[in-house]
Protein backbone atom coordinates (compact mmCIF):
# COMPACT_ATOMS: atom_id res chain seq x y z
CA UNK A 1 0.00 0.00 0.00
CA UNK A 2 1.46 3.32 -0.95
CA UNK A 3 -0.52 6.52 -0.94
CA UNK A 4 0.45 9.74 -2.64
CA UNK A 5 3.95 8.79 -3.53
CA UNK A 6 4.21 10.98 -6.56
CA UNK A 7 6.21 13.72 -8.14
CA UNK A 8 3.81 16.16 -6.48
CA UNK A 9 5.92 16.78 -3.39
CA UNK A 10 9.23 15.66 -4.85
CA UNK A 11 11.32 18.53 -3.46
CA UNK A 12 9.74 18.39 -0.04
CA UNK A 13 10.24 14.67 0.26
CA UNK A 14 13.74 14.70 -1.19
CA UNK A 15 14.64 17.29 1.41
CA UNK A 16 13.69 14.79 4.09
CA UNK A 17 15.30 11.80 2.43
CA UNK A 18 18.63 13.43 1.73
CA UNK A 19 18.74 15.13 5.12
CA UNK A 20 18.16 11.71 6.70
CA UNK A 21 20.84 10.04 4.60
CA UNK A 22 23.42 12.69 5.36
CA UNK A 23 22.56 12.87 9.06
CA UNK A 24 22.93 9.14 9.26
CA UNK A 25 26.37 9.46 7.73
CA UNK A 26 27.64 12.55 9.49
CA UNK A 27 25.63 12.54 12.77
CA UNK A 28 23.09 14.98 14.11
CA UNK A 29 25.91 17.30 15.08
CA UNK A 30 26.22 18.48 11.46
CA UNK A 31 22.54 19.20 10.98
CA UNK A 32 23.01 22.89 10.15
CA UNK A 33 25.55 22.25 7.41
CA UNK A 34 23.46 19.35 6.17
CA UNK A 35 20.34 21.45 5.85
CA UNK A 36 22.31 24.14 4.01
CA UNK A 37 23.71 21.55 1.62
CA UNK A 38 20.28 20.11 0.83
CA UNK A 39 18.81 23.57 0.31
CA UNK A 40 21.71 24.36 -2.02
CA UNK A 41 21.11 21.21 -4.04
CA UNK A 42 17.43 22.01 -4.39
CA UNK A 43 18.21 25.57 -5.48
CA UNK A 44 20.54 24.25 -8.15
CA UNK A 45 17.94 21.76 -9.26
CA UNK A 46 15.29 24.43 -9.41
CA UNK A 47 17.44 26.53 -11.73
CA UNK A 48 18.55 23.69 -13.96
CA UNK A 49 15.23 21.94 -14.23
CA UNK A 50 13.48 25.19 -15.01
CA UNK A 51 15.37 25.13 -18.29
CA UNK A 52 15.81 21.43 -18.90
CA UNK A 53 14.06 18.16 -18.36
CA UNK A 54 14.63 16.55 -14.99
CA UNK A 55 17.16 13.72 -15.06
CA UNK A 56 15.81 10.21 -15.01
CA UNK A 57 16.72 9.77 -11.38
CA UNK A 58 16.32 13.20 -9.76
CA UNK A 59 16.86 11.73 -6.29
CA UNK A 60 20.33 10.45 -7.16
CA UNK A 61 21.24 13.78 -8.72
CA UNK A 62 20.11 15.76 -5.70
CA UNK A 63 21.85 13.39 -3.32
CA UNK A 64 25.11 13.73 -5.20
CA UNK A 65 25.00 17.52 -5.34
CA UNK A 66 24.05 17.84 -1.68
CA UNK A 67 26.70 15.46 -0.43
CA UNK A 68 29.40 17.09 -2.55
CA UNK A 69 28.44 20.46 -1.18
CA UNK A 70 28.45 19.15 2.37
CA UNK A 71 31.83 17.46 2.01
CA UNK A 72 33.18 20.70 0.62
CA UNK A 73 31.89 22.63 3.61
CA UNK A 74 33.17 20.03 6.06
CA UNK A 75 36.61 20.14 4.49
CA UNK A 76 36.67 23.87 4.93
CA UNK A 77 35.55 23.52 8.53
CA UNK A 78 38.21 20.90 9.13
CA UNK A 79 40.91 23.48 8.61
CA UNK A 80 39.85 25.26 11.77
CA UNK A 81 38.27 22.51 13.86
CA UNK A 82 39.48 18.99 14.37
CA UNK A 83 36.83 16.75 12.91
CA UNK A 84 36.81 13.03 12.27
CA UNK A 85 35.32 12.14 8.96
CA UNK A 86 33.49 8.88 8.72
CA UNK A 87 35.74 6.52 6.83
CA UNK A 88 33.44 6.16 3.89
CA UNK A 89 32.70 9.86 3.55
CA UNK A 90 34.14 10.01 0.10
CA UNK A 91 31.41 8.72 -2.10
CA UNK A 92 32.66 7.49 -5.38
CA UNK A 93 31.14 8.57 -8.64
CA UNK A 94 29.60 5.15 -9.18
CA UNK A 95 28.00 5.10 -5.80
CA UNK A 96 25.64 7.91 -6.72
CA UNK A 97 23.92 5.80 -9.24
CA UNK A 98 23.97 2.78 -7.06
CA UNK A 99 20.38 2.02 -6.31
CA UNK A 100 21.38 0.50 -2.97
CA UNK A 101 22.11 3.97 -1.63
CA UNK A 102 18.66 5.13 -2.51
CA UNK A 103 16.89 2.07 -1.22
CA UNK A 104 18.93 2.34 1.97
CA UNK A 105 17.44 5.79 2.45
CA UNK A 106 14.27 4.19 3.75
CA UNK A 107 16.13 2.91 6.79
CA UNK A 108 17.78 6.26 7.19
CA UNK A 109 14.43 7.99 7.16
CA UNK A 110 13.29 5.59 9.83
CA UNK A 111 16.33 6.47 11.95
CA UNK A 112 15.49 10.11 11.41
CA UNK A 113 11.91 9.58 12.58
CA UNK A 114 13.19 8.04 15.81
CA UNK A 115 15.71 10.85 16.19
CA UNK A 116 13.11 13.60 15.67
CA UNK A 117 10.74 11.82 18.06
CA UNK A 118 13.41 11.39 20.70
CA UNK A 119 12.37 11.66 24.36
CA UNK A 120 14.90 14.45 25.03
CA UNK A 121 12.59 16.66 22.99
CA UNK A 122 9.16 17.90 24.09
CA UNK A 123 6.08 16.83 22.11
CA UNK A 124 5.82 20.21 20.43
CA UNK A 125 9.52 20.12 19.53
CA UNK A 126 9.16 16.64 18.11
CA UNK A 127 6.33 17.74 15.85
CA UNK A 128 8.20 20.81 14.65
CA UNK A 129 11.46 18.97 14.02
CA UNK A 130 9.70 16.17 12.19
CA UNK A 131 7.98 18.68 9.94
CA UNK A 132 11.20 20.59 9.39
CA UNK A 133 13.70 17.79 8.92
CA UNK A 134 11.68 14.85 7.60
CA UNK A 135 8.89 16.61 5.78
CA UNK A 136 10.86 19.58 4.45
CA UNK A 137 8.47 22.26 5.70
CA UNK A 138 9.81 25.79 6.04
CA UNK A 139 9.40 27.72 9.29
CA UNK A 140 6.72 29.76 7.58
CA UNK A 141 4.80 26.66 6.49
CA UNK A 142 5.06 25.15 9.95
CA UNK A 143 3.79 28.30 11.59
CA UNK A 144 0.82 28.61 9.29
CA UNK A 145 -0.03 24.94 9.69
CA UNK A 146 0.25 24.97 13.46
CA UNK A 147 -1.40 28.40 13.71
CA UNK A 148 1.54 29.82 15.58
CA UNK A 149 3.52 33.01 15.13
CA UNK A 150 6.43 32.64 12.75
CA UNK A 151 8.80 34.14 15.27
CA UNK A 152 7.75 31.74 17.98
CA UNK A 153 8.18 28.74 15.67
CA UNK A 154 11.58 29.98 14.63
CA UNK A 155 12.76 30.29 18.22
CA UNK A 156 11.30 26.95 19.21
CA UNK A 157 12.84 25.17 16.23
CA UNK A 158 16.24 26.68 16.92
CA UNK A 159 16.02 25.46 20.50
CA UNK A 160 14.87 22.03 19.42
CA UNK A 161 17.59 21.78 16.82
CA UNK A 162 20.22 22.61 19.39
CA UNK A 163 19.06 19.69 21.51
CA UNK A 164 18.88 17.51 18.42
CA UNK A 165 22.39 18.52 17.50
CA UNK A 166 24.05 18.03 20.87
CA UNK A 167 22.10 15.26 22.52
CA UNK A 168 21.36 12.77 19.77
CA UNK A 169 24.57 12.29 17.84
CA UNK A 170 24.51 9.11 15.81
CA UNK A 171 20.99 8.46 14.62
CA UNK A 172 19.78 4.87 14.80
CA UNK A 173 16.84 2.54 15.04
CA UNK A 174 16.37 1.70 18.73
CA UNK A 175 17.36 -1.80 19.78
CA UNK A 176 14.66 -4.35 20.36
CA UNK A 177 14.55 -3.82 24.09
CA UNK A 178 13.67 -0.15 23.67
CA UNK A 179 11.80 -0.37 20.43
CA UNK A 180 8.29 -0.89 21.72
CA UNK A 181 8.32 2.06 24.00
CA UNK A 182 10.00 4.31 21.47
CA UNK A 183 7.58 3.20 18.79
CA UNK A 184 4.57 4.06 20.88
CA UNK A 185 5.87 7.58 21.46
CA UNK A 186 6.56 7.94 17.74
CA UNK A 187 2.97 6.90 17.04
CA UNK A 188 1.73 9.44 19.52
CA UNK A 189 3.65 12.21 17.75
CA UNK A 190 2.41 11.11 14.34
CA UNK A 191 -1.16 11.16 15.61
CA UNK A 192 -0.68 14.60 17.19
CA UNK A 193 0.74 15.83 13.90
CA UNK A 194 -2.22 14.43 12.02
CA UNK A 195 -4.65 16.10 14.39
CA UNK A 196 -2.90 19.43 14.01
CA UNK A 197 -3.61 19.18 10.32
CA UNK A 198 -7.11 17.84 10.76
CA UNK A 199 -8.40 20.60 13.00
CA UNK A 200 -10.85 22.73 11.09
CA UNK A 201 -9.64 26.23 10.64
CA UNK A 202 -10.07 29.19 8.41
CA UNK A 203 -7.66 29.58 5.51
CA UNK A 204 -4.46 27.64 4.89
CA UNK A 205 -6.36 24.41 4.37
CA UNK A 206 -3.86 23.27 1.81
CA UNK A 207 -0.87 23.26 4.11
CA UNK A 208 -2.97 21.67 6.85
CA UNK A 209 -3.98 18.90 4.54
CA UNK A 210 -0.33 18.41 3.68
CA UNK A 211 0.41 17.82 7.36
CA UNK A 212 -2.22 15.10 7.49
CA UNK A 213 -0.67 13.38 4.50
CA UNK A 214 2.81 13.79 5.92
CA UNK A 215 1.67 12.04 9.09
CA UNK A 216 0.32 9.23 6.93
CA UNK A 217 3.55 9.12 4.95
CA UNK A 218 5.70 8.86 8.07
CA UNK A 219 3.53 6.04 9.35
CA UNK A 220 3.89 4.30 5.99
CA UNK A 221 7.67 4.58 6.21
CA UNK A 222 7.45 2.80 9.56
CA UNK A 223 5.42 -0.05 8.04
CA UNK A 224 8.31 -0.80 5.72
CA UNK A 225 10.43 -1.85 8.65
CA UNK A 226 9.66 -5.32 9.96
CA UNK A 227 9.97 -4.65 13.67
CA UNK A 228 8.04 -1.39 13.47
CA UNK A 229 5.19 -2.80 11.42
CA UNK A 230 3.18 -3.52 14.56
CA UNK A 231 -0.62 -3.89 14.82
CA UNK A 232 -0.99 -0.53 16.60
CA UNK A 233 0.90 1.23 13.79
CA UNK A 234 -1.49 -0.23 11.24
CA UNK A 235 -4.44 0.72 13.40
CA UNK A 236 -3.18 4.30 13.57
CA UNK A 237 -2.72 4.35 9.80
CA UNK A 238 -6.19 3.01 9.31
CA UNK A 239 -7.63 5.66 11.60
CA UNK A 240 -5.79 8.46 9.80
CA UNK A 241 -6.87 7.18 6.38
CA UNK A 242 -10.55 7.03 7.38
CA UNK A 243 -10.45 10.53 8.81
CA UNK A 244 -8.46 11.96 5.91
CA UNK A 245 -11.02 10.44 3.53
CA UNK A 246 -13.59 12.89 4.88
CA UNK A 247 -11.27 15.88 4.70
CA UNK A 248 -12.89 17.63 1.73
CA UNK A 249 -16.46 17.02 2.84
CA UNK A 250 -16.08 18.73 6.21
CA UNK A 251 -16.20 22.24 4.81
CA UNK A 252 -18.61 23.34 2.09
CA UNK A 253 -18.08 25.81 -0.73
CA UNK A 254 -19.26 28.67 1.44
CA UNK A 255 -16.47 27.82 3.88
CA UNK A 256 -18.90 26.48 6.46
CA UNK A 257 -18.41 23.50 8.70
CA UNK A 258 -20.49 20.48 7.68
CA UNK A 259 -21.33 17.86 10.31
CA UNK A 260 -21.07 14.18 9.54
CA UNK A 261 -24.85 13.98 9.23
CA UNK A 262 -24.94 16.49 6.39
CA UNK A 263 -21.72 15.64 4.59
CA UNK A 264 -21.88 14.78 0.92
CA UNK A 265 -20.63 11.22 1.04
CA UNK A 266 -19.69 11.34 -2.64
CA UNK A 267 -16.88 13.67 -1.64
CA UNK A 268 -15.31 11.07 0.61
CA UNK A 269 -12.10 9.77 -0.87
CA UNK A 270 -12.60 6.18 -1.87
CA UNK A 271 -8.92 5.41 -2.21
CA UNK A 272 -8.36 6.49 1.38
CA UNK A 273 -11.35 4.53 2.63
CA UNK A 274 -9.94 1.44 0.94
CA UNK A 275 -6.56 2.14 2.47
CA UNK A 276 -8.26 2.50 5.84
CA UNK A 277 -9.87 -0.92 5.41
CA UNK A 278 -6.58 -2.41 4.28
CA UNK A 279 -4.69 -1.18 7.33
CA UNK A 280 -7.54 -2.05 9.68
CA UNK A 281 -7.37 -5.57 8.38
CA UNK A 282 -3.60 -5.60 8.80
CA UNK A 283 -3.93 -4.34 12.36
CA UNK A 284 -6.12 -7.19 13.51
CA UNK A 285 -3.37 -9.58 14.50
CA UNK A 286 -1.71 -10.27 17.81
CA UNK A 287 -3.00 -9.61 21.28
CA UNK A 288 -2.65 -5.87 21.49
CA UNK A 289 -5.82 -3.80 21.42
CA UNK A 290 -4.60 -0.22 21.36
CA UNK A 291 -6.47 3.05 21.54
CA UNK A 292 -5.81 3.35 17.81
CA UNK A 293 -7.59 0.05 17.15
CA UNK A 294 -10.70 1.31 18.88
CA UNK A 295 -10.61 4.70 17.21
CA UNK A 296 -9.98 3.09 13.82
CA UNK A 297 -12.92 0.78 14.43
CA UNK A 298 -15.15 3.72 15.22
CA UNK A 299 -13.93 5.68 12.21
CA UNK A 300 -14.48 2.68 9.94
CA UNK A 301 -18.10 2.35 11.06
CA UNK A 302 -18.77 6.02 10.47
CA UNK A 303 -17.07 6.02 7.10
CA UNK A 304 -18.43 2.80 5.65
CA UNK A 305 -22.11 3.15 6.47
CA UNK A 306 -24.26 3.99 3.46
CA UNK A 307 -25.84 7.02 5.04
CA UNK A 308 -26.06 8.72 8.39
CA UNK A 309 -29.31 7.00 9.35
CA UNK A 310 -27.96 3.50 8.91
CA UNK A 311 -24.88 4.15 11.06
CA UNK A 312 -24.33 1.26 13.45
CA UNK A 313 -24.64 3.30 16.65
CA UNK A 314 -24.69 0.37 19.05
CA UNK A 315 -21.37 -1.05 17.88
CA UNK A 316 -19.85 2.40 17.90
CA UNK A 317 -21.04 2.87 21.46
CA UNK A 318 -19.52 -0.44 22.50
CA UNK A 319 -16.21 0.66 21.02
CA UNK A 320 -16.42 3.98 22.84
CA UNK A 321 -17.06 2.13 26.11
CA UNK A 322 -13.86 0.18 25.54
CA UNK A 323 -12.01 3.32 24.51
CA UNK A 324 -12.90 5.02 27.75
CA UNK A 325 -11.63 2.09 29.78
CA UNK A 326 -8.44 2.39 27.75
CA UNK A 327 -7.96 6.10 27.76
CA UNK A 328 -10.35 8.02 29.91
CA UNK A 329 -10.13 11.43 28.27
CA UNK A 330 -12.95 13.90 28.63
CA UNK A 331 -13.11 14.36 24.86
CA UNK A 332 -13.61 10.65 24.32
CA UNK A 333 -16.30 10.70 27.00
CA UNK A 334 -18.01 13.59 25.25
CA UNK A 335 -17.90 11.91 21.87
CA UNK A 336 -19.25 8.75 23.46
CA UNK A 337 -22.26 10.69 24.74
CA UNK A 338 -23.12 11.89 21.25
CA UNK A 339 -23.49 8.26 20.24
CA UNK A 340 -25.19 7.37 23.52
CA UNK A 341 -27.87 9.97 22.83
CA UNK A 342 -28.61 8.45 19.42
CA UNK A 343 -29.53 5.20 21.15
CA UNK A 344 -30.91 6.25 24.52
CA UNK A 345 -32.39 9.65 23.82
CA UNK A 346 -31.64 13.17 24.99
CA UNK A 347 -33.05 12.95 28.52
CA UNK A 348 -30.80 10.04 29.42
CA UNK A 349 -27.82 11.70 27.73
CA UNK A 350 -28.39 14.77 29.88
CA UNK A 351 -28.29 12.54 32.96
CA UNK A 352 -25.04 10.99 31.75
CA UNK A 353 -23.35 14.27 30.92
CA UNK A 354 -23.65 15.25 34.58
CA UNK A 355 -21.00 12.65 35.34
CA UNK A 356 -18.37 14.55 33.41
CA UNK A 357 -19.59 18.08 34.00
CA UNK A 358 -16.95 18.83 36.57
CA UNK A 359 -14.05 18.07 34.25
CA UNK A 360 -12.16 21.29 34.10
CA UNK A 361 -10.76 20.71 30.62
CA UNK A 362 -14.30 20.49 29.25
CA UNK A 363 -15.34 23.89 30.55
CA UNK A 364 -12.95 25.60 28.17
CA UNK A 365 -14.03 23.44 25.23
CA UNK A 366 -16.81 24.79 23.03
CA UNK A 367 -17.70 21.23 22.00
CA UNK A 368 -18.94 20.52 25.50
CA UNK A 369 -21.43 23.40 25.36
CA UNK A 370 -22.54 22.75 21.81
CA UNK A 371 -23.09 19.03 22.40
CA UNK A 372 -25.00 19.73 25.58
CA UNK A 373 -27.03 22.31 23.65
CA UNK A 374 -27.97 19.61 21.14
CA UNK A 375 -29.19 17.36 23.93
CA UNK A 376 -31.21 20.20 25.48
CA UNK A 377 -32.70 21.06 22.11
CA UNK A 378 -33.66 17.46 21.41
CA UNK A 379 -35.21 17.18 24.86
CA UNK A 380 -37.25 20.32 24.19
CA UNK A 381 -35.46 22.82 26.45
CA UNK A 382 -34.99 25.47 23.79
CA UNK A 383 -34.05 28.36 26.03
CA UNK A 384 -31.36 26.39 27.79
CA UNK A 385 -30.04 25.22 24.41
CA UNK A 386 -29.77 28.86 23.35
CA UNK A 387 -27.82 29.78 26.47
CA UNK A 388 -25.43 26.91 25.92
CA UNK A 389 -24.85 27.77 22.27
CA UNK A 390 -24.13 31.37 23.21
CA UNK A 391 -21.60 30.08 25.72
CA UNK A 392 -20.09 27.82 23.04
CA UNK A 393 -19.71 30.77 20.66
CA UNK A 394 -17.91 32.71 23.37
CA UNK A 395 -15.61 29.81 24.11
CA UNK A 396 -14.15 29.22 20.64
CA UNK A 397 -11.92 31.66 18.82
CA UNK A 398 -12.11 29.72 15.58
CA UNK A 399 -14.11 31.72 13.05
CA UNK A 400 -15.41 28.73 11.14
CA UNK A 401 -16.70 27.16 14.32
CA UNK A 402 -18.21 30.44 15.54
CA UNK A 403 -20.08 30.79 12.27
CA UNK A 404 -21.29 27.21 12.50
CA UNK A 405 -22.57 27.69 16.05
CA UNK A 406 -24.23 30.99 15.20
CA UNK A 407 -26.10 29.31 12.38
CA UNK A 408 -27.22 26.59 14.76
CA UNK A 409 -28.38 29.21 17.23
CA UNK A 410 -30.36 31.09 14.60
CA UNK A 411 -32.10 27.89 13.53
CA UNK A 412 -33.54 27.25 16.97
CA UNK A 413 -37.27 28.03 17.23
CA UNK A 414 -38.39 31.18 19.07
Amino acid at each position, binding site marked *: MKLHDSIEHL*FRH*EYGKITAALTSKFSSYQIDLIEDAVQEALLKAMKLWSFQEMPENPSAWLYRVASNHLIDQLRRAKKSVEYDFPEDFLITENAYNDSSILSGIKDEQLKMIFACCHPVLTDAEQIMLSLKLISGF*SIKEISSALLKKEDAVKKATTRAKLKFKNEIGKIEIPNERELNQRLSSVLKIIYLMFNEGYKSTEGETLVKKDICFEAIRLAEILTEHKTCDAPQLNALLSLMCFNAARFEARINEAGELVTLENQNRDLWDEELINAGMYYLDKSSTGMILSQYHLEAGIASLYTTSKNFESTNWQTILNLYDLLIIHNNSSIAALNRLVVYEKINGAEKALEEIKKIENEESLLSNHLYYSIKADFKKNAGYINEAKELLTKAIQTTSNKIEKKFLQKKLSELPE
Partner: protein
Amino acid sequence: MSKYLYLFRGGDTQRIQQSPEQMQAHMQKWGVWMKGLAEKGTLVDGLPLGKEGKVVTGGKKVVTDGPFAEGKEIVGGYLIVNASSLDNAVEISFGCPIFEHDGQVEVREIMSMNM
Protein backbone atom coordinates in the same frame (compact mmCIF):
# COMPACT_ATOMS: atom_id res chain seq x y z
CA MET B 1 11.37 37.08 -37.69
CA SER B 2 14.53 37.73 -35.68
CA LYS B 3 16.20 36.12 -32.75
CA TYR B 4 16.24 37.83 -29.39
CA LEU B 5 18.28 37.16 -26.28
CA TYR B 6 16.83 37.32 -22.79
CA LEU B 7 19.31 37.85 -19.98
CA PHE B 8 17.83 36.94 -16.61
CA ARG B 9 19.00 38.80 -13.55
CA GLY B 10 18.07 38.86 -9.89
CA GLY B 11 15.46 37.07 -7.86
CA ASP B 12 18.07 35.32 -5.75
CA THR B 13 17.04 36.88 -2.46
CA GLN B 14 13.52 35.55 -2.81
CA ARG B 15 14.72 32.24 -4.14
CA ILE B 16 16.85 31.30 -1.14
CA GLN B 17 13.99 32.01 1.25
CA GLN B 18 11.71 29.52 -0.43
CA SER B 19 10.62 26.23 1.04
CA PRO B 20 11.25 23.08 -1.01
CA GLU B 21 7.56 23.01 -1.89
CA GLN B 22 7.66 26.58 -3.19
CA MET B 23 10.85 25.92 -5.14
CA GLN B 24 9.21 23.03 -6.89
CA ALA B 25 6.11 25.05 -7.66
CA HIS B 26 8.25 27.84 -9.11
CA MET B 27 10.25 25.41 -11.18
CA GLN B 28 7.09 23.91 -12.57
CA LYS B 29 5.94 27.35 -13.69
CA TRP B 30 9.14 27.77 -15.65
CA GLY B 31 8.56 24.37 -17.18
CA VAL B 32 5.06 25.33 -18.29
CA TRP B 33 6.23 28.66 -19.70
CA MET B 34 9.15 27.15 -21.61
CA LYS B 35 7.04 24.32 -22.92
CA GLY B 36 4.52 26.86 -24.20
CA LEU B 37 7.29 28.73 -26.00
CA ALA B 38 8.64 25.52 -27.48
CA GLU B 39 5.24 24.44 -28.75
CA LYS B 40 4.73 27.76 -30.54
CA GLY B 41 8.18 27.50 -32.09
CA THR B 42 9.29 30.58 -30.17
CA LEU B 43 12.00 28.91 -28.13
CA VAL B 44 15.43 28.54 -29.68
CA ASP B 45 17.74 27.80 -26.77
CA GLY B 46 18.42 28.65 -23.17
CA LEU B 47 20.33 27.60 -20.07
CA PRO B 48 20.95 28.74 -16.52
CA LEU B 49 24.38 29.99 -15.47
CA GLY B 50 26.33 28.97 -12.38
CA LYS B 51 27.25 31.33 -9.58
CA GLU B 52 31.00 31.15 -10.04
CA GLY B 53 32.73 33.20 -12.70
CA LYS B 54 35.81 35.14 -13.68
CA VAL B 55 36.26 38.31 -15.63
CA VAL B 56 39.23 38.87 -17.90
CA THR B 57 39.92 42.55 -18.54
CA GLY B 58 42.01 44.75 -20.82
CA GLY B 59 45.24 44.39 -22.71
CA LYS B 60 46.89 42.91 -19.66
CA LYS B 61 44.18 40.28 -19.43
CA VAL B 62 43.72 40.82 -15.71
CA VAL B 63 41.66 38.00 -14.24
CA THR B 64 39.31 38.87 -11.41
CA ASP B 65 36.45 37.21 -9.58
CA GLY B 66 33.24 38.90 -10.37
CA PRO B 67 32.20 41.59 -10.99
CA PHE B 68 29.45 40.24 -8.82
CA ALA B 69 29.17 43.03 -6.31
CA GLU B 70 25.40 43.31 -6.50
CA GLY B 71 23.27 40.18 -6.48
CA LYS B 72 20.81 41.90 -8.74
CA GLU B 73 23.34 42.30 -11.51
CA ILE B 74 24.35 38.70 -11.84
CA VAL B 75 23.12 37.06 -15.00
CA GLY B 76 21.47 33.88 -13.82
CA GLY B 77 20.57 32.47 -17.19
CA TYR B 78 19.71 33.22 -20.77
CA LEU B 79 17.14 32.33 -23.37
CA ILE B 80 17.01 32.82 -27.12
CA VAL B 81 13.61 33.28 -28.71
CA ASN B 82 12.13 33.97 -32.14
CA ALA B 83 10.06 37.14 -32.27
CA SER B 84 8.71 39.47 -34.93
CA SER B 85 10.04 42.61 -33.27
CA LEU B 86 11.69 43.92 -30.14
CA ASP B 87 8.25 44.87 -28.80
CA ASN B 88 6.99 41.39 -29.52
CA ALA B 89 10.00 39.90 -27.73
CA VAL B 90 9.32 42.12 -24.74
CA GLU B 91 5.71 41.03 -24.71
CA ILE B 92 6.69 37.37 -24.76
CA SER B 93 8.96 37.94 -21.78
CA PHE B 94 6.00 39.13 -19.68
CA GLY B 95 5.05 35.51 -19.07
CA CYS B 96 8.39 34.72 -17.46
CA PRO B 97 8.10 33.42 -13.86
CA ILE B 98 11.22 35.37 -12.85
CA PHE B 99 9.01 38.39 -12.17
CA GLU B 100 7.44 36.51 -9.27
CA HIS B 101 10.78 36.91 -7.56
CA ASP B 102 11.20 40.51 -8.51
CA GLY B 103 13.77 39.57 -11.12
CA GLN B 104 14.67 41.31 -14.34
CA VAL B 105 14.79 40.36 -18.01
CA GLU B 106 17.03 42.25 -20.40
CA VAL B 107 15.77 41.80 -23.95
CA ARG B 108 18.30 42.22 -26.78
CA GLU B 109 18.11 41.62 -30.49
CA ILE B 110 20.67 39.20 -31.83
CA MET B 111 22.25 40.67 -34.95
CA SER B 112 22.00 38.70 -38.13
CA MET B 113 23.29 38.97 -41.70
CA ASN B 114 19.91 39.31 -43.36
CA MET B 115 18.78 42.55 -41.77
